[in-house]
């Protein structure tokens, strides 16, 4: 984390992302933004207000409002990227990515390979995730679909410092990068869901990037490794705090990048603690936690003192009713029960 002496401010993720985009657009004239409702006068600056103020500075030639045509948003980003531009494409909800799976999976991920390495596709796709009382079609966490695709990079920042640094790194990366952000973490709304934790973070003044492919240890501990992203990360941290009162020390890791995974940090930790719990809001079966678990079994089986556990959303579409949603999405209490079970 930055030292206070360079000058820092406390920012929300939305503010940090807005700064990242503005700075990258000032730095490089090839960077532009494309999506629905991103720059319309009197509009709302993207579905979650991240782009407010950008059209005034950069104009409508570089803040491009599209029709409601997700295939064209992704396809235009792919095409401009192969020409050497640096598009930042916006999906209002990550659920809409399924509208443009062809452009992402068949085109963005494969054009470099199909060309024998003659092309690259340096594009960014931003997509909000999160099961947040919006029901089955605005509440999915589809990161895992894309983790499966060779050629794509997948990142999932959970705080303002890393969100800004990773988005800037993604814009400069020569590959297609999908950046998944959680709807409850943009501002302060998620504070309650995060167990009352402060969701703002110190962000240094000036330019910095955070490397894609690097995890961070959010809390050190000797007894069990917990890997979690987004709101699940904050629930895991809340669980770790409560477990510490009983003398159980959890090491909580934010992987930040899901493809390529930082195996050195994650599995290095598992070798020390001998226990692994993965927590995510994506559904259980085939979720990215399954990949982390498989690799842990492959790379650190002899260090494991207990079975690998996944605490994930139950295999069901996201329901709308609060009671139903809470019944299937992992809560801090689920993490606590799982960790206690491993140490019993």
């Amino acid at each position: 984390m930055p030292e206070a002496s360079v000058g820092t401010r406390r920012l929300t993720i939305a503010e940090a992302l807005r700064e990242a985009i503005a700075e990258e657009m000032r730095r490089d004239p090839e960077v532009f933004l494309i999506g629905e409702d991103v720059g319309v006068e009197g509009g709302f600056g993207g579905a979650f207000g991240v782009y407010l103020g950008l059209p005034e500075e950069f104009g409508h030639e570089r803040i491009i409002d599209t029709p409601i045509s997700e295939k064209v948003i992704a396809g235009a980003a792919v095409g401009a990227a192969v020409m050497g531009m640096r598009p930042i494409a916006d999906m209002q909800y990550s659920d809409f990515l399924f509208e443009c799976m062809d452009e992402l999976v068949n085109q963005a991920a494969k054009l470099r390979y199909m060309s024998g390495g003659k092309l690259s596709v340096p594009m960014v796709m931003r997509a909000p995730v999160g099961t947040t009382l919006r029901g089955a079609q605005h509440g999915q966490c589809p990161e895992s679909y894309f983790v499966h695709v060779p050629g794509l990079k997948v990142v999932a920042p959970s705080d303002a410092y890393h969100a800004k640094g990773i988005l800037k790194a993604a814009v400069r990366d020569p590959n297609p990068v999908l950046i998944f952000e959680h709807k409850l973490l943009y501002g302060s709304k998620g504070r309650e869901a995060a167990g009352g934790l402060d969701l703002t973070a110190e962000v240094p003044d000036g330019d910095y990037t955070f490397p894609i492919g690097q995890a961070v240890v959010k809390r050190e501990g000797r007894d069990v490794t917990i890997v979690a992203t987004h709101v699940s990360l904050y629930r895991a941290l809340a669980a770790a705090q409560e477990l510490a009162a009983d003398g159980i020390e959890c090491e909580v890791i934010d992987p930040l990048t899901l493809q390529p995974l930082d195996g050195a940090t994650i599995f290095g930790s598992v070798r020390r603690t001998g226990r692994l719990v993965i927590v995510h809001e994506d559904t259980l079966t085939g979720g990215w936690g399954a990949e982390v678990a498989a690799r842990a079994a492959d790379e650190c089986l002899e260090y494991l003192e207990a079975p690998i556990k996944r605490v994930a959303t139950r295999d069901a579409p996201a329901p709308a009713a609060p009671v139903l949603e809470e019944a299937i999405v992992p809560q801090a209490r689920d993490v606590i029960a799982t960790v206690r079970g491993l140490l019993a």
Partner: protein
Amino acid sequence: MLLIRRFEERVYRLFLEGEIPGTLHQYQGQEAVAVGVCDVLRRDDWITSTHRPHGHALAKGVTARAAMAELYGKATGCCKGKGGSMHLGDPAVGMLPAIAIVGGGNTVVTGLGLAMKLRRTEQVAACFFGDGASNEGAFHEGLNFAAVEQLPIVFVCENNLYGASTPYGRVSLVPDVAQRATAYGVPAQIVDGMDVLAVRAACAEAVASARAGGGPTLIECKTYRFTGHSRSDARGYRTREEEDEWSQRDPLVVIGARLDEAALAELESEVRAELDDAVEFARSSPQPDPAEALEDIYA
């Protein structure tokens, strides 16, 4: 055009003889479209292509050697053996690896056009697609966005009457794809896709307009593939009478009638030599190193 025809005939034979792996979608009969369009494009203009890309590639400037070696799966192919028949292409000549998902190029081409517009380069992008693609959502999203943003794009529909085995009349109540362009405010023309000069004239106009900032045009070329959809297609869904009728309009015969016999004979002999050389090059080229399979995934 002759090079494309003879290339395809040679490739078909080599495929049956087991020298070329994979599958083939051949271009015989449609040569006037690729040549008429690419002839008015600059080298730094771009094209997107389809699962039937051999003709587009040769017309845009991929050499017979590089194309043949790619079909052979050799390291010297234009895509180092990683693309194959359905992904022929070469950015160096302004051709994306061909996109073999029907309609796939129709959204990606808008990005090519957007980059050209934002950079004010006066380049143009041409998007080849078939009648079948006009029923994909990508066709509609791409066309509408190109219109709204006035992108420098020529959408070239090769209407060869069948999407694989399905007659276009069975899947569209609107007989002409061009009619769909008007719905998006895009000017459209229907041309005889068997007449290279007609295709060329229509495309020249569309390209000039796009280069001058006049936005996209759709050109529908009525054409016919003389072979099956892919190499295993016995063409049971269309009549031999229909095939005979179209073969009377063979684009090579149409344009050949304007050339004298001596010139044609010389052309044949040049093409034969070029293809002999291409086949020899492909045969003698090295296989890719197996380790190459894991290269070029990320930049």
